[in-house]
């Protein structure tokens, strides 16, 4: 009986260790909700892909230096639902992304809102982000 109690505790412990990972991966695991940012720059490449999309963007730093960004977006199904199309992107176009800074990597961000050149704006955030009003109700 004693060894069974130990076994149950071990299995339960193993399964509980996954608790911090919620949704697909927790927003809080990789991004800092206290560090919102707005990026104005040039889209160099877009990955319209599952389980997340990526927008690669170059911005100009105050000193004139170019900074490369890798911005996570929601999956294609969610982007489509919010009216965005793969064809809305062309490499080299300018755009604005509002989102949050990544924790580990200074060039990583989580996108919430994408504003295209003509002013059209799209929600691109994934499930589990902060409740900041970016998501249309």
């Amino acid at each position: 009986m004693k060894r069974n109690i130990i076994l149950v505790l071990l299995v339960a412990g193993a399964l509980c260790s996954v608790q911090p990972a919620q949704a697909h991966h927790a927003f809080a695991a990789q991004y800092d909700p206290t560090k919102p940012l707005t990026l104005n720059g040039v889209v160099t490449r877009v990955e319209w892909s599952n389980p997340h999309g990526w927008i690669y963007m170059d911005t100009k730093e105050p000193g004139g230096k170019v900074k490369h960004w890798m911005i996570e977006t929601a999956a294609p199904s969610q982007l489509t639902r919010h009216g965005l199309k793969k064809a809305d992107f062309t490499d080299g176009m300018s755009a604005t992304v509002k989102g949050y800074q990544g924790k580990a990597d200074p060039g990583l961000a989580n996108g919430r809102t994408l504003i295209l050149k003509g002013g059209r704006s799209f929600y691109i955030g994934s499930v589990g982000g902060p409740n900041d009003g970016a998501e249309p109700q």
Partner: protein
Amino acid sequence: MLSIVPTFAWLEGLAWTTALRESPYGYPLIETSHVAFIVIFAGLVMMMDLRLVGLAFRHVPLAQIQQRLFRWQMGAFVPSMGTGILLFLVDPLRYYQNVFFIAKLLFLVLAGLNALVFHLKTYRKGETWDEDPHVIVTAWRAGAASLLLWSVTIVASRLIPNNWFK
């Protein structure tokens, strides 16, 4: 390790892997069925394991549990592997360098070896303790190891999306 990268890049660039990676419904469907089949498979395997460690069906002969569950276990295992391989082929460059993915494969192999050793060796001489609520200690260990290894495999899988060590 490095020599496999061009192959993975080629795989990722194929028309059908690209289409699946970019698909609004195909990918989530495969991803969801992958998880659903694993739930069925792991649940059924664990029922056998719980009998081995003496926590469930203590008075049902092991052979009967084995006979009833095996088909269902395999019926869930094959599609879970199929969908898993598909998910890997769609994005090989992302997975091969992910520590949790490598850990998952490792535990998966260990869990498989544990099951093989049990069926080919330990359970070969099972007639003597088949109806006994307390199985022999090697069989108990196989059940305990299976419970732990499958749990850890699932936990490692669940952590794959977190690229903390990239």
